[in-house]
């Protein structure tokens, strides 16, 4: 029973991620030159004891990001990269809201995972690392990601359908910082 209580699980909707159980997390803010980034590391134990399915351990790291809209203004109170590198701990429950589904997801799993949903449908035992990037339609999209500093990623989108299209110079400046 204690082992089950030490496990964590996640429920994701289009605009929110719900995590139940112990986990570490950190989050980057959507302003400055970054994206809205959430990094979660969870570990735990599953199973029902030695006599039945055995004990299994896992470590899951998941980075999810929505791009910064270059035409949108920075919301009041956004602090740029204030504490994006600082880890936080949640023992029971935490929720991450986002304005749209993530367009970038990186998952690394050591151990076992059982995932079902729009993001993944998989059962694996071992080490799996996967990344997916979904550029938006009718837009310019600049993306810079370094797994050694996930919350520092730059992910910017310029929609050409907007009222104020970005200049080529602005876009190329972001592409080649």
């Amino acid at each position, binding site marked *: 029973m204690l082992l089950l209580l030490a496990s964590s699980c996640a429920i994701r909707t289009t605009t929110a991620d719900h995590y139940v159980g112990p986990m570490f997390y950190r989050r980057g803010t959507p302003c400055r030159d970054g994206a809205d980034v959430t990094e979660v590391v969870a570990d735990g134990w599953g199973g029902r004891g030695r006599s039945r399915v055995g004990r299994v351990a896992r470590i899951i790291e998941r980075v999810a990001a929505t791009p910064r809209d270059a035409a949108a203004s920075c919301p009041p109170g956004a602090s740029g990269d204030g504490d994006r590198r600082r880890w936080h701990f949640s023992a029971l429950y935490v929720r991450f809201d986002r304005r749209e589904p993530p367009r970038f*997801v*990186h998952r*690394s799993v*050591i151990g076992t995972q059982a995932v079902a949903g*729009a*993001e*993944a*449908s*998989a*059962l*694996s*035992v*071992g*080490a*799996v*690392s*996967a*990344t*997916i*990037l*979904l*550029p*938006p*339609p*009718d*837009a*310019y*999209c*600049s*993306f*810079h*990601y*370094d*797994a*050694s500093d996930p919350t520092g990623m730059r992910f910017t989108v*310029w929609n*050409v*359908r907007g009222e104020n299209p970005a200049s*080529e110079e602005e876009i*190329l*400046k972001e*592409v*080649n910082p």
Partner: protein
Amino acid sequence: MRGWQHAAVGVALCCALAGCAKTLAFTTATKFALDVSQQADKNVDVSLGYDRAELAVIPAPDNTDAGDHADTYSVLGTFFVHYDNPFVTSDPLRLNQFFATGAAARTAAQSPRFRTYFGHSAGVIEDNRANPTPTFTEDLNKLKELKK
């Protein structure tokens, strides 16, 4: 592993992650595991051992060919991936990408500056293929020279 197997693994991964939605997708994957993934078409992909894939998926409408005035899906992009063992190295994954999709791609294709940028990027890629020693930093410096 042969090319078609890589592609199959990538498509399976993409379907598993994205649900085979009709959207542009870029994926990378490294596995050392027993992995069972279900695709959107209900086929089950099973892999055992080491596997790795990088893949770009561009959606295409059913039973429609590209013509003079109808493209499948316009995309211009540069795609840089540095991949190392994600579980032991301090530099496991770096992605640097720039895409223009749909209407943006069609606009960029007519822009002299974007044409120069993408043309030069293609040249850098070709140089790397012929001489794989240049580092990514050197490539970035080349692109910065282009800006000047």
